[in-house]
Every structure is written in structure tokens, then in C-alpha cells.
């Protein structure tokens, strides 16, 4: 059995200066009875695209504006302006890849999220 020497490191640790900070006032969470959401349409505030690991990369040049991606998107992530799709709205896109799968022109490619 080898003996392991105990290292004494206490000397090298410098005492940390205590930082005095003002205690923050606790904000009380207001909750409704029975978890009722009383403002209609408030789900727009809860951006659910933040746990996406892949995102659809749209190639504007290859796109023919056939609108297949707009039709197949299970959320509302393909905005349309003047009868043409524009850059993907990633706020609610979960990166499911349906648009990429359905695009027969190869204009949408799923790429890894950079985080």
C-alpha cells in the first residue's frame, strides 16, 4: 500500500473579503387561482424556441416561394410578407426539421445551433 501524502493547501488560500451588498427586495410572484391565464394571447410572450438544438437555414437563392414550408410548419415560424416567405422566425421554432424535409428544392438545411 502506498502512502499518500496529505497536501496542506490552507496556507495558500487567502481570506476572501466579504462584499457587502444591499439585500434585494423579494418580488412576490402573483399567481392566479387554479393557474388560470387571464390575458388572452399571452402565449406569444413565452418564446418556446430556446431549447432548439438544430435550426433551419434558408437559402434564399434556391427558394422558389412554393410555400410548402409555410404549409408544413407545425408552429408559426415561416412569416409571409407580400405573398412571399421571408427569413425564418426562430422565436418559436423548435428545430423539428419538417420544413427541410418537405423542401424539394433543397433550400432549407438543418444546421447545429451555435451556443
Amino acid at each position, binding site marked *: 500500500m502506498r502512502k499518500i501524502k496529505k497536501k496542506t493547501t490552507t496556507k495558500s488560500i487567502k481570506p476572501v473579503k466579504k462584499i457587502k451588498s444591499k439585500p434585494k427586495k423579494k418580488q412576490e*410572484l402573483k*399567481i392566479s*387561482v*387554479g*393557474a*388560470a*391565464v*387571464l390575458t*388572452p394571447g399571452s402565449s406569444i410572450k413565452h418564446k418556446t424556441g430556446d431549447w432548439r438544438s438544430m435550426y433551419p437555414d434558408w437559402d434564399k437563392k434556391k427558394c422558389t416561394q412554393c410555400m410548402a414550408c409555410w404549409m408544413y410548419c407545425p408552429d408559426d415560424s415561416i412569416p409571409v410578407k407580400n405573398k412571399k416567405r421571408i427569413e425564418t422566425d426562430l422565436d418559436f421554432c423548435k428545430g423539428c426539421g419538417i420544413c427541410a424535409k418537405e423542401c424539394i428544392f433543397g433550400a432549407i438545411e438543418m444546421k447545429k445551433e451555435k451556443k
Partner: protein
Amino acid sequence: MPRKVIEASTAVAEAVKFCKPAVIPMYPITPQTHIVERISEFINDGDLDSEMIHVESEHSALSAAIGSSATGVRTYTATASQGLALMHEVLFVASGMRLPIVMNVANRALSAPINIWNDHSDSMAARDSSWIQLYVESAQEAFDTTIQAFKIAENKKVLLPIMVCLDGFTLSHVYEPVDLPQQSKVNGYLPKYKPSNILDVKKPVSLGPIGYPDSFMHFKKAQQDAMDNALKIIKKSNSEFKTRFKRSYGNGLIETYNLKGAKFAIVCAGSICGTTRVAVDELRKQGIKVGLIKIKCFRPFPKEDIIAACKKLTGVAVIDRAVSFGFEGPMFTDLKAAIFNEKKKPLIHSFIAGLGGRDVTKNDMLTIFKKISKTKKPITEWLLD
């Protein structure tokens, strides 16, 4: 006030008729069936103006009740045993959405082996579902408690669903004289239900859609606080009932019988309390000081009242009609926990009795009193003989 000899199930149906729920989604199951039958007769005869929904299962019965209650109308349902087990998932949704649904449970054992007779294993399994649980002893109490249940559940400080448990067959199918009040008297006691957040196309809301980790715990704490409030509201509803109808059941949470000067007591719930009363009377005649503590309200558990009732006792026998397998009777566990931190506390014994319709007789009660008065060690026993 007419007095009628009716079945306890009919008494419950009569109580529902007096409270006039707008929607009644129900699925018949033994031994709750007579409640469903009587209510559908009332609706058919034009005595009760309610929408009866014939659902395809108990899961759907409570789901429909949730939908109905969410639109802001008084809602009632009833079930038993396997039906309550099938509802289990939905029980938590009803309480989480804080919907004051009233449900009668005609207590019956759970399979397997299949058994249609009475014990408390069905409702005890739903103990932690945040439903208020009241247990009744007689047909009159079943009638009175069902009316009180609407008042308790619909109170703004409570807003929780409520189970009124009556023993299957031993109570649900028993004929007893029941005082039926005038409709105006019930109207005076039970005001119209005024909901706060309801499903309404004119003012759209979403009920209970999602609770993120930052808020979910707060909703659960609110439920626990509502349960604490319920203790007071149940007491208040009981005393208000007393002033209007001249009847009450202890303080609404527990009822004590001959506890004055008693050294030993039996703690139980439901119809066996009647049997215990007879045994207590017999022993009192012989000069033996015994009493009864009837637990009427099991959830929320009336901790303070239990502590006060047990203070002067030396021995208490808790009779459970259900088992938490792998440990002990659920009422026994709770009672011990309630008085654990008290300095002066009685020795507490556990008796498991009357599972699956096994008779619990006066002699059983006399034997229990005899056993607990002689021992100095805690007894844990199943009454199998």
C-alpha cells in the same frame, strides 16, 4: 319538515336535488348505482333541472365535470372503488384547477380479488389528491354533509373539490329515517354559486394550461393554504348548519362521544362509528370509562382537534378500514404523526378491520377496548376472526 324512511343513496340524491347542480356527469358502479338511478329519476320526473351526461367511463365523468365546473356552474358526480381508481389521474386536475366539484364516494374495496363490498381502500388511495374528504356515519349525515359540501367547496377561501364518503352497502343501501328540509331553508343556507374565473367567450381565459418550474410550486402552496383554510370553513359550515337545521356533527371535523373522563377511546370513521357508540354505551353502563373519536374530516387532517381530544386519554385504538401496504393503516399513521410532538400523549394501537365487507361487530369493539385497557405495549392487529 317531512321525515321519510329512505335509503342513504336516496338521501344523497335528495340532497343533490336540493342543491340543484346544473350538470351531473355520472357513470354507474356498485355500490353508488342507486345515487345515479335516483338522480336520473328526479331529472326524468322534472323534479331536478340538471343536465345529466351519460359518459363512457369514470375518467370521462370527472373530465366532463371539470369542463362543466370550468364554465362556472355547480357540478356534481358520484363514484366508487374501481371508478375512483380510474378517475385518479383526473382528481389532481380538478383540484389543481381549483374547481369546487362535489362527489359522493360509496366506499368499496379495490380488486383483486374482485370484491364489491365496503372498506375505505378506494378513497384512502385518493388521499393525496388535494380533495377534501368527509366521511359520514348515517343517512341523515350523508344528506346534511352533501349539502354542506357545496358550501365548503364553493367558499372563495377554499375552492377545492370535495369527496363525501359513505360506506357502500352498510350505509348506501340502508334505510333510515331522514329529515328533509324545505327548499327555501336550503336556499338560505346555500347561496348561488358565484365563480371567479370561468370559461367565457366574451372574456377569454385559459384555465390551468401550464406551470413552469418558477411558478408550479406556488400553485401547490396555494392548494395547501386552501386546505388549511378549509379546516375553519368546514367548522363554520357545520355551525351555520346547526343554527339553521338544528343538527350538527361534532365541530364538523371530528365528533367525540362520551369522551368526558374517558381513559380509552376508539378512533374510526364512517358507519362503524355507530357500532362503536353502542359498545361505548354498554361499557359506560358497567362503569368503564371509554369513548369514541369519530374522524369526519380526513383531509384536511384536523390535527389540533385530535391533539385536544387525545390529551387526557391513556390509550387509543385506531380502526382502519384500509391498509397502506408495507406500513400500516393510513389513519393510524396520521393520528400518530399529529400528536408526536406533544409531551403528554396516549399509547396508540392499530387495528385493521372490516376489509372487503367483513363485518365489524359490537363484540369486536368490546374486545378492542378490553385489549387496549390491559396492555402497556402498542398493539398492531388485523381483526381476522
